[in-house]
């Protein structure tokens, strides 16, 4: 399946196309089947239309909330402590060689 490498040009922002869906799936490193892309296009369009309700609000001057609590720059003591032992870190790996995670070659 040909995956678009650039975001397709859009007439209207709200109309997500099947090419958009394939493009976003590529960004997310998520393989989706042909029929999945078609179904997802409809579902995402519906969800985004709902979400677009937010554009009714005039909020240019409202500051964004990234975090609800009044805490900033929490730091810990800069002190050495043991890290996870190598064998434990590799314990769940699907493939290991030479004490490293093994993966196939880059494409």
């Amino acid at each position, binding site marked *: 399946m040909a995956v678009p490498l650039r975001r397709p040009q859009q007439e209207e922002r709200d109309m997500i196309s099947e090419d958009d869906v394939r493009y976003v799936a590529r960004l997310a490193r*998520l393989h989706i089947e042909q029929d999945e892309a078609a179904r997802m296009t409809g579902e995402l369009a519906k969800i985004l239309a709902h979400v677009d309700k937010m554009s009714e609000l005039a*909020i240019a001057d409202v500051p964004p909330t990234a975090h609800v609590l009044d805490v900033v720059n929490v730091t810990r003591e800069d002190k050495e402590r043991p890290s996870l032992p190598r064998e434990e870190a590799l314990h769940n790996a699907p493939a290991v060689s030479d004490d490293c995670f093994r993966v196939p070659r880059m494409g």
Partner: protein
Amino acid sequence: MTTLDPLRLTARDAKRLLVDGEISAAELTKVYLDQIAAVEPKVRAYILVTSDNAAKYSTKVDREMQAMRGPLAGLPIAVKDNMVTEGVTTTCASRILHNYQPVYTATAVRQVWEDHVVMLGKTNLDEFAMGSSTENSSCQVTANPWDLSTVPGGSSGGSAAAVAAGEALWALGSDTGGSIRQPASLCGIVGMKPTYGAVSRYGLIAFASSLDQIGPLTRSVYDCALLLQHLVGRDPRDATSVELPEPVALPSAERLDGLRMGVPSEYLAVGIEPGVRARFDETLARVEELGATCVEISLPHTEYALPAYYIIAPAEASANLARFDGVRYGYRCADPVDLTDLYERTRGEGFGPEVKRRIMIGTYALSAGYYDAYYGRAQKVRTLVRRDFEAAFAEVDLIASPTSPTVAFKAGSRTDDPLAMYMSDVCTIPANLAGLPAISIPCGLSDGLPVGLQLIGPAFSENRMLEAAHALEGAIGFDTAPPFADPRPRPEAEGWNPGGITYRPEDAQS
């Protein structure tokens, strides 16, 4: 030994029986393991029951009772399977983590383990806690013990169903948009989401980090406070965790004199079922009988909370779930031709439809050219939702609403319509966006199914909320024993299925 009814026994009473020597921890644990054996084929609340280990550990608690005498020692608990447990498989109900053996334990779980609670097993959930019915689990479908043809709610549906069905004394859940409160409501039990930061998120497999919070699911408000006491605290491993300004107190209030209860008109305009509305109105009458005043308030940005949530939560999820790539743990696709193929097919085959949908929405909302229109805007809406609450709490002490607009719905009835499913959380999402504590308690039945009352409070008002919930609980007098109605054969989940009762000897509690 006293005959115990696991459908009604509270942790408070179980603890008294243990302390008085009327039952042993091993006997108490056996009550739950027997109930699991009896009803789990119908309810399917657990992904993994650690029965041998629970039996062994409870015997150890009895043997070493002197050393292990703690406030929670010997009280059996169920844990949602998105909290990592060292040596005990943790799946998040996802194929991508089907074989994951954590090498560490979540702080909240470790804290109750250190208090010598007995872990009964890991409970079912919507995959990665994304859903409102537990039907998105790739392991199994959990039934609501009040009517087995309905859902238990979600995403902590396994924990809620386990408690409601008497398969656990109490349970841990997590709440990102209502995932403790909504299933508690649908299953007729108590569920609480503490103030954001009150409980460490370390070891809670992250869904939306700015919203996720661990909390208790219990059979009473007193139990909820008792368990919460042992969950809270600042954890150096979670930089967003904070110390509560005052310790969690065990509630005893029977009256609400002087309390000002806000009732937001916007929450009653979101398609609340007549039966739910009727129980809610009756409960407000009780609130006034107990000496409180009900005040109509406005939270004007309520209708924008759900749209903001469905950008913020998927955006954070798309980043958090990037770590599942088939390299360090979990599922890996067969015969990848190169690294990109490995990533794409591992994730395509490992994630279920709802998780994919949210990764897609999140990636789209964060992608170049769309960030301001979606994520930036949603974060501003979040500010407006917080301001609504700040203004309201200048007038009232607590806010009351139905927890869920409906009672438990039929399995399969919303699975084809993601938006209809999302609407299940319309009353619970705003508290997550604002980081506020909120509790759901049962307030009656509608057509034989439980209705939940939600109380929302200002940040760190856990004690006020628990006292009020306790007084109301006493006045309502809800019977937590479900009838297991409409038993019928349940369809088997298709494809991969590690569910049902399994135990591996290597599974160890600690």
